[in-house]
């Protein structure tokens, strides 16, 4: 496994992980200029996914809040917190993703809703789209899918 280097100077942080893919780095994180400061809520029980999604959104200047269970998500929305974008995972602690999404839509939230999940069956996809989810994406959440959505929210 990878060794933790005893000392690392700032300038070589990227070098640490350079695997020849660095020349395409520019293409990997599709560069866009955001006009507005968007806000997003990430609802995901799995820490790894949650951290990654937040970081990806941060890199595009989106202010994000993350919760790891359904109850907190519903409480947050019910307390009138406003978001431009909500990203929800299908399987969550407390209530499942479908039930949470339904509750959020019932509260009357009108922002863009993105469902991100690992394996999905067509019936599940249809169920989510039927209750008001705007986009259903299979993991991983990548710039290719995210950027058009951010552009749309930013009015570009």
């Amino acid at each position: 496994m990878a060794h933790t280097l005893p000392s690392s100077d700032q300038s070589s942080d990227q070098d640490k992980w350079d695997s020849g893919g660095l020349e395409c780095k520019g293409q990997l994180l599709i560069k866009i200029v955001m006009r507005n400061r968007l806000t997003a809520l990430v609802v995901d029980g799995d820490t790894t996914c949650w951290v990654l999604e937040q970081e990806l959104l941060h890199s595009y200047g989106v202010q994000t809040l993350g919760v790891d269970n359904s109850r907190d998500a519903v409480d947050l929305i019910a307390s009138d917190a406003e978001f431009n974008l909500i990203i929800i995972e299908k399987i969550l602690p407390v209530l499942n993703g479908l039930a949470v999404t339904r509750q959020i839509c019932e509260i009357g939230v009108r922002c863009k809703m993105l469902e991100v999940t690992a394996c999905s069956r067509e019936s599940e996809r249809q169920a989510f789209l039927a209750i008001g989810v705007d986009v259903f994406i299979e993991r991983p959440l990548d710039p290719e899918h995210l950027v058009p959505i951010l552009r749309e929210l930013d009015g570009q």
Partner: protein
Amino acid sequence: MDLAALKTQLKNFVQSMFEEGVLDNQFSQIQALQDSTNPNFVEEVITLFCNDAERIINEINRNLGYQNVDFSNLDSYVHQLKGSSSSIGANRLKLACANLRQASDERNKEG
């Protein structure tokens, strides 16, 4: 071994994982997210992932050890593992989860 040699070794190791299909493009995305404001991002995410994955794999093993396997319980663990492994770019692990899910759907304990 000096620092430069260690760095080269790490670089080669990661490269070979890409070539063998252990890692995929998603891992490159994560590397691209690391910058001066977040200098240890890749390391942190990998650590997080390994801790979570170990826990989940232990649960999966435990479940499979039962006489009557609870496949729906197993399914949610596999789902979670597939989710985090595909988010981090652990390609082979993601594919293994897909296979496991398939077998689980068929209630195939042997598979």
